Each structure stands twice: as C-alpha cells, then as structure tokens.
C-alpha cells in the first residue's frame, strides 16, 4: 500500500512529563479505514500517544501528519477526528439527544439535518428509544453507546477510542467488541483503539501496535504478532506462551530443554544464544512415547472450558505449559512433539549485563556508584580510569534484606523460562539489571544485590 493511503503519519514523536520520557521517538503510519489497536501494559505511553493524536497535549518533538498537514500544534476542536473517552465523558446536564447533537450544534448544522443525523446515529448504536433520557439514568453499556454515537455524529475521518470497554463487565465487553467491529465496517472510517487487553486487541484489530515503556515493540497483524513475536516481551504479553532459553546450533536447528529441534529460522549464526517461544497449543502431547521428541510427567491438568491446561515436567526438568482438548492423568508419563514451524526463534536483547565501572584500586571497582570487590585487574588499570564490565545473568546474587546487598533494587518484571526465572531488577539509580535465578520473587519485591568478585569480568 502506498503513501497516499496513509491517513495519519507519526514521525519521531517524543513526549516527557516532569523529566520522565513517556514516548520515545514514535514512528507509525495508519492506513485509511484501518482498525488499528495500540496495545500495552499500563504506563507504556499508549494513552499519551492517543492524547497527542487527539490534540489534548502537545508533543515535545516530532510531527503528526494528517492529510499531508502537520497537526501536532492544532487545537483539538479543529482536528477532523473525534474521541470516545475511557469513562464516557458524557455531559450530565444534557439528555441523550443533546449529547449526540452537541458537536453538530456547535458547527451550526441546520436544525433538520441535526435531527436526521442524531436519529441515525442513535439508531446505529441501538439507542433510538432513549433520546429524552438523562445520562445518569443509563447503564454503563448504554452510556458507552451514546458516547460512540456522539463521537461519530461529527462524521470524523478518524475515531479515537481510549480503552472504551474497560469499565464494562465481561459479557457486555464481548458484545460491544462485536458491535464496534461491525460499526467500523459500516462506517468505513479509521479507528484507533487503545487497550491493555491483548484478547480484545487480537479479536478486533487489522493492525496491532505493541508498546512498552514509551517505545513501539512490534507492529503487525494479529496473526503476525501472535505467531511471530519479535521479542520475549511481546511473546509474554500476547497470549500464553512458553519462553525458553535456547541455542541456535546452526540454520534450522535449535537446542532447548536439553533437546535438539528442527525449526524454520535461518541466519542467526552458529551456537548463538537465543530465546524461543512456543505457544501452549502448539505442543502435541500423547499418552505413548513412540514418535515423541521428548517425554515428561504431567504435574497438573485443569479444565479451562474448551481445553485443558496441562503442566508437564520434562525429562530434563523443564516445566512446560500445554493446551489440549484431552485430559491427562496427573503423574502419568507423556510424550511430546513440537513442529518446526511452531518454534518462534527470537534474538536475545542481550546475553549478559554490561555496564561502565571506575577503577578504585587493583581489586576494587565502582559500579553504579557503589564499591565492588573484583579479581586482581593486573597491569595497566590506573585508579580512576574507566572500564566496561560484564556480569552473566545467573551470577547475580539476590538477598532478601536490602541491607545485605551492595546495591538494592526492585523486581520490575519477571518471566518464567521453563526451569528458572528471568528477572528485571530496577536498581535505585534507575538502571536495570537482568538476573536469572531459581528462587521465587514477586514483582515489586525489594532485593539486595551482591556479585562475587570472580564473576565481574572486564570486557573493555
């Protein structure tokens, strides 16, 4: 699709609030008539991005191009787009009819035309009988419909939706998902939908933009994003998954959970550490061991409505999550099989922690402002000179008591990788450390951090 098909182009958009960068160099284009979802956990910047598009705040740098014009400085009432707000934001002093007519009256649309359009919009959201009702007398779902009708009455080219379904109960949410999707088809305009609900995103969108900490992680169709996540964050955030440490032995051959597997990925190089993602429904599980690639023992089996969720301890002591239509007895021996195309190989963002350090003396380094003991540095390292050090993920020692560590930090994220946890520790100076550990920690735990002298390696 060519450039002429883009209705919105976002170039190098950045925004900070009080010193924290909320959006970092966002680049994105949106096609005419597309249903695009911006997906991410809370605090990832998705709502800020929507507010910049809507005009409710201005970017620090970058541009938002709509129909060939940079609108990043245009006030919201002059932008040809409308918003459905998270908590509806209906005007409580006006009835349903006047809420929907609000924008049309401001635009001085003739009275009979207003009447026609309001009725049409209310009919479209099945709220025709509610014209004279007060806003407070409506249920959440009904208010949501009125908010959508109000936003669409102005005939915007783009409709922005800020987590519009988050305040509805589960059943209502499902119904509204379908209705929104139908509305999108009927209207033929562009929908930009913001949500933290990955299922919602997968069901509704033509394109999904996954965001994390102010950056776009991946842009793609729901199928692409689900089947070929670019990194462990996307894999973990979208759907259930087994994320495992692996080694790319050679093209089309990868080793994980102690076995070699055939895969379809090439070009990673030989003997390179990678991550693999295997969706729980892509692991074939059977009662006999003949024909299986590896074996294991069932540790739990839970009925989830359509399928059973089964946890298996493999022959090399890795834990895998599997979804299957058949139940398996706990404790029974099972065989398993993974097809080459179901193994998604991803680059590791890094394979060890690397940071700057300052030499204090022959056996001491200053790292993140604290003094660490290390092996003798040998000749050529003057006190005060800078070196680069590396520490492997599994060589960082976490302590229950913050005081027991040289540094302290907070567990900011954690990921189970089959036989160990992969933690992201945000230390008090704001830097991140990645840690592999067998101990169980929770998100938000405060930990002391120690590193043994022999595990601090000078790398440059």
């Amino acid at each position, binding site marked *: 699709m060519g450039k002429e098909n883009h209705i919105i182009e976002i170039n190098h958009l950045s925004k900070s609030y009080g010193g924290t960068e909320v959006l970092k160099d966002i680049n994105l284009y949106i096609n005419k008539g597309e249903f695009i979802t911006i997906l991410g956990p809370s605090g990832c910047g998705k709502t800020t991005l929507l507010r910049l598009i*809507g*005009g*409710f705040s201005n970017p620090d740098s970058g541009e938002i191009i709509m129909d060939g014009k940079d609108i990043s400085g245009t*006030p*919201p*009432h002059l932008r040809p787009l*409308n*918003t459905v*707000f*998270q*908590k*509806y*934001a*209906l*005007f*409580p*002093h006006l009835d349903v009819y006047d809420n929907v007519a*609000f*924008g049309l009256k*401001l*635009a001085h649309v003739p009275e009979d035309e207003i009447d026609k359009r309001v009725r049409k919009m209310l009919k479209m959201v099945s709220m025709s009988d509610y014209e004279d009702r*007060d806003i*407070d*007398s409506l249920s959440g779902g009904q208010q949501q419909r009125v908010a959508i009708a*109000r*936003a669409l009455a*102005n005939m915007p080219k783009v409709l922005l939706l800020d987590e519009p379904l988050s305040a509805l109960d589960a059943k209502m949410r499902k119904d509204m998902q379908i209705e929104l999707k139908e509305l999108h088809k009927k209207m033929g305009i562009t929908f930009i939908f913001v949500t933290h609900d990955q299922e919602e995103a997968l069901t509704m969108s033509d394109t999904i933009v996954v965001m994390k900490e102010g950056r776009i992680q991946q842009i793609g169709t729901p199928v692409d994003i689900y089947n070929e996540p670019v990194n462990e964050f996307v894999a973990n955030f979208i759907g259930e998954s087994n994320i495992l440490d692996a080694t790319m032995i050679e093209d089309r051959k990868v080793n994980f959970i102690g076995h070699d597997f055939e895969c379809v990925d090439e070009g990673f190089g030989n003997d390179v550490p990678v991550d693999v993602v295997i969706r729980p429904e892509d692991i074939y599980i059977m009662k006999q061991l003949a024909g299986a690639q590896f074996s294991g023992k069932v540790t739990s089996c839970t009925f989830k409505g359509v399928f059973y969720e089964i946890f298996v301890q493999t022959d090399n002591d890795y834990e895998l999550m599997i979804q299957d239509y058949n139940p398996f007895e706990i404790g029974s021996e099972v065989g398993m099989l993974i097809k080459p195309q179901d193994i998604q190989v991803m680059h590791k963002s890094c394979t060890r922690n690397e940071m700057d350090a300052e030499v204090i003396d022959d056996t001491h380094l200053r790292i993140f402002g604290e003094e660490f003991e290390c092996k003798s540095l040998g000749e050529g390292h003057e006190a005060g000179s800078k070196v680069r050090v590396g520490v492997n993920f599994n060589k960082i020692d976490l302590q229950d008591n913050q005081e027991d560590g040289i540094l302290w930090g907070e567990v900011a994220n954690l990921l189970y990788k089959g036989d160990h946890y992969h933690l992201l520790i945000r230390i008090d100076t704001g830097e991140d450390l990645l840690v592999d550990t067998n101990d169980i920690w929770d998100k938000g735990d405060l930990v002391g951090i120690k590193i043994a002298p022999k595990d601090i390696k000078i790398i440059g």
Partner: protein
Amino acid sequence: MIRKFFAQAYIWLLLIILYAPILFIAVFSFTESKVLGNWTGFSTKLYENLTQGSLDGGSSLMSALQNTLIIAVVAAALSTLLGTMAAIGMFYLRGGKKKAITFMNNIPIINPDIITGVSLFLLFIFMRITQGYTSVILAHITFCTPYVVLSVLPKMSQMNPNIYEAARDLGATQFQALRKVVIPQLIPGMVSGFILAFTMSLDDFAVTFFTRGTIGLDTLSTYIYADARKGGLTPELRPLMTIIFLTILVLLIIINIRQQRLAQRNELKK
C-alpha cells in the same frame, strides 16, 4: 422510657433556648409598645407603618434596608463570578502552588472582621477610592469571594475531568467548552456560593462600618447600631426582623425540599 423522655426534653430545651430571642422579637412585633418587653395589646400597627413607610425617621430605615439588599446582591453576584473563575483555575494548579493558593484563600475566612475592615479602610484611603457604595461593595466582595471558591471547588473535583476535553474534541473552543459544559456542572456550587456570600454580606457590620465613609451610607446593621446608641431600637425593626427571618426560613425549606426531590429522583433512576 424515662431515658427517652429526658433525651427528648433535652433537645426541646436546646431548641427553645436557641430560638427564644427570635421568637421574642416575633411576638413583640405585634404590639405597639416603644420599649421591647412591654406588651400593650395586640396590634399590626408596626407592620402597617413598615409597609407604608410612615414611621418616625422610617425613611432612613427603609433606605438602609434597600442599601443592604443592593450591596448584598451586587457583592454576591460579583463574588460568585470571581470565585468561580478562581476555583476553576485553582483546580488545575498542581503541588505547592495549589497548596499556597488554597491557604491564601482561607486567610480572609479566618481573619477577624475587624482587621479586614480596618485594613481595607486604610487601603481605600491610600488608593484614594471614594468611600461609599463602591468601597463597601469592594470590601464585601473581598470577604465573600473565598466562600464562593470553597463551595465551587468540590463541584470541580466531582466533575469528570474528561468532559472539558470531550467538548473540545467535539468542536468547542476553550470558551465554549467552559460555558456549555463546565459551568453547568458548577451551577449547584455557584448557587450555594451565592447564597452564602449574600448572607455574609447581609449581616456584616465591622467591615461595612469601616469602609462606608462619612457620606452617611447606612446598611441595616450600621443603622441598628446607630439607632441603639441613640437610645432604644425603633419599634418597626421588630416586624422587619420577623419578616427577614420568615423569608429566610421559607427559602431554606424550599431549598431542602428541592434537594430531597433531586436525591429521590436520582435514587429512582438507579
């Protein structure tokens, strides 16, 4: 049983003590006696005098009443305008600024009237503002505005912050959004702020006394003060007080009934 009786009696005793002075005036407004407390037989003469304005020096009483009402209405209206704008601005302030402004807003409320009065008096002289209607109204606005701010601010907090943005989104300019969407949400707070400011202005004595100048501008409170010093209150004050009290009582009852109805309607809808 006995406990209940005493509890009831206690309440009634309290109410009687609380309302006895007003009741006393109301009862004695129906007798002609010049001295309060002397019952010289039932008569509505004082009421007649009041409505016809035919009382000794009565024209000054009526003009004082008129002044009081004009000053109260003008001061309350301007305070409501000022206070509402201030409340909207204060709501969007953050952190230290918000705390500082809120603190400053509270000072005139706790400041003794006498200090407000004297300082305004000096300020008006310093700024060469003619003492009279203008200075009294300005002074009343000064001490009424903080009350309006205090009654409008909670309405701002109750408002869904997105509705202003929703109005902008639908094509309203900043001013249109304020007028068509934000102000309507604030009206209950503005009304109670207006009533509060009106009553504060109505019964103010100290500030008025210091800022009215020497042109002989009298409000009810300064008139009564001067009258009492001359020796004895004008008897027509009794029916006037009674009428004012009854008016306020009726107003209060109406407001209460309205609020109850509103609450009931909201309850029904849910």
